[in-house]
């Protein structure tokens, strides 16, 4: 029974990883940028939630209508000020710029908020739980998981059914052709960056409510999100969800045996997928070509 419990808890945890990872996946799929500050932006979302919820004296959920638009605006501004410019300067520049941004964010947070670990006020939801057969499931974990599924479903629907989604897919497939048929790609990029940062901030709020966070938590958050993206397969949102679940289940099941090896097992799973199926478990050959470096050339 403990194993069933581990798998269930692992899947719920995996939902959170998928929620952080979907923005990373989307930004890479559309703009070909790996945002190394993505994890730090999630942590910023948690801090913003902390500031808002303690200023207003309400649980952090109530602040989401303020927080998410603010995060979207930050994403648009970052795309406009940094990412867009970096992308025009070749392949190295985006990596260097987003890494520099990550260093800045982590240390600004240390200056502004000290390095003490913090937690968010999740209201009554944080303590509530329900019984599923003989399992005890926290409502908070369940909400995080369902939110992740809902966000991924909405994104997938928006991409496949709306005119915004058509523009995004066209831009992702072929930037120049998208321009030729009259798509203004800069607004598309800005909206994608906004969505990516908003989903990161939402994930940050869940991370901060479920556990604690500190200014340097971003790098590990980025690594987990990245592993979910690669395991699931780049450019596939459902793959990202599957990747997140694989990570979460591995972490909790191995942690059940020995807590010290839980994170190591996650990293080794990632390296194993990289060895056996470098394109991820759910990828098309197109996406493999995008990341595959020198397979053919080497």
């Amino acid at each position: 029974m403990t194993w069933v419990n581990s798998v269930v808890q692992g899947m719920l945890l995996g939902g959170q990883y998928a929620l952080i990872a979907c923005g990373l996946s989307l930004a890479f799929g559309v703009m070909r940028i790996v945002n190394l500050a993505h994890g730090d932006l999630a942590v910023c979302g948690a801090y913003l939630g902390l500031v808002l919820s303690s200023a207003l004296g309400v649980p952090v959920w109530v602040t989401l209508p303020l927080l998410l638009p603010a995060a979207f605006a930050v994403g648009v501004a970052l795309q406009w000020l940094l990412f867009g410019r970096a992308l025009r300067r070749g392949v190295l520049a985006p990596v260097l710029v987003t890494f520099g941004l990550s260093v800045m964010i982590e240390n600004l947070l240390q200056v502004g908020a000290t390095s003490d670990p913090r937690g968010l006020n999740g209201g009554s939801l944080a303590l509530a739980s329900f019984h599923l057969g003989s399992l005890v499931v926290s409502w908070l974990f369940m909400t995080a998981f369902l939110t992740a599924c809902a966000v991924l479903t909405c994104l997938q629907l928006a991409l496949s059914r709306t005119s915004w989604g058509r523009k995004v897919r066209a831009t992702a497939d072929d930037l120049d052709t998208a321009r030729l048929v009259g798509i203004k790609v800069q607004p598309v990029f800005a909206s994608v960056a906004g969505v990516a940062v908003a989903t990161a901030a939402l994930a940050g709020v869940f991370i901060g409510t479920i556990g604690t966070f500190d200014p340097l938590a971003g790098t590990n958050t980025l690594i987990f999100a990245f592993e979910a993206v690669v395991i699931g397969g780049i450019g596939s949102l459902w793959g990202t969800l599957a990747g997140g679940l694989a990570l979460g289940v591995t972490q909790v099941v191995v942690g059940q045996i020995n807590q010290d090896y839980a994170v190591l097992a996650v990293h080794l799973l990632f390296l194993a997928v990289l060895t056996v199926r470098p394109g991820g478990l759910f990828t098309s050959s197109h996406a493999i070509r995008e990341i595959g470096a020198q397979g053919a050339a080497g």
Partner: protein
Amino acid sequence: MTAQVAVSRWSRTASGFTGVSLLVVAFLAAVPYVFGGPAEQPLITLLTFIALASMWNLLAGFSGLTSFGQQAYLGLGAYALYLIAEHGINPFAGIIPAAIAAAVISLPVAGLVLRLSGGYFAVATLVVAAVFQIAATLSPSVGGTTGVSLPGLAGYSDVLREALIYWATLAVAVVSVAGVYLLVRRTFGLDARAVSSDQVAAASAGVRVGRIRLLAYVVAAGLAGAVGALIALQTLYVEPTSVFSIQYSVDMLFMVLIGGVGTIEGPILGALVLFGLQETLSAYGAWYLVIVGGLAVGVTLIASRGIWGYASERLGWSFLPIGYQVGRES
């Protein structure tokens, strides 16, 4: 009438500078005799920076491999030196074996991470560094989370030990700069720069992309291992969180960007800038790193060629030329 054209690599400036740099190295080698201990500490820091910057430049500047996980090999070098010293071998004699150990371990890792490029490669190298760090903390034989102190140095007086560490650091810095310089002057340099600007085009022009990237990665890992061994000697203690710190990657990125990516002189200048910043601003703690990060972003977006890139363009200088110049035959 045909113009007589000569293609040359060396210029008068470059020859002069090579002479001057040999003199500088000779002078630096004499520092322990002339100035003694107080001058050694800051120079050790500076020379370590130069070695790190030069190594990262080989990866990112010449081969397009932006690794943020070189601390994996710093840590491996430091732990390898500990294991060597623990077996009763003189730690100073262990620096080269530690470097070789790091290079050997980097071979199978390269098989994995070199399947990726760009940002994906960058994060994969972070994962590798995290794996090595966790592995070290889980190994009781190397002290787990608390770390280990380096044995085998009790027989040295403080003065002699400091001086030996200084000379070893100087040697590693000179080998890094000269090694990278001599390497990129060969066909390797041309191939590597072709790979970093466009892999597909380079491959179609007959460059063996995989081998170039592998060579750069393994050489950089070996140099990082040597620097890691030096850090263990300097601190006399190997502790996983400090020796696997991502701060090393931040420093390397900053020095290479500020100085000038893809030049030999740039990383040395960048090391001087970082050294100066650290001396003046390190009292400000986190603000110092905010400035370092901000400058890295600003330089990439506004002045991507770095200080040396601009200086050499405006003044026409090239102290350590890696390309060729076309001039009128005299």
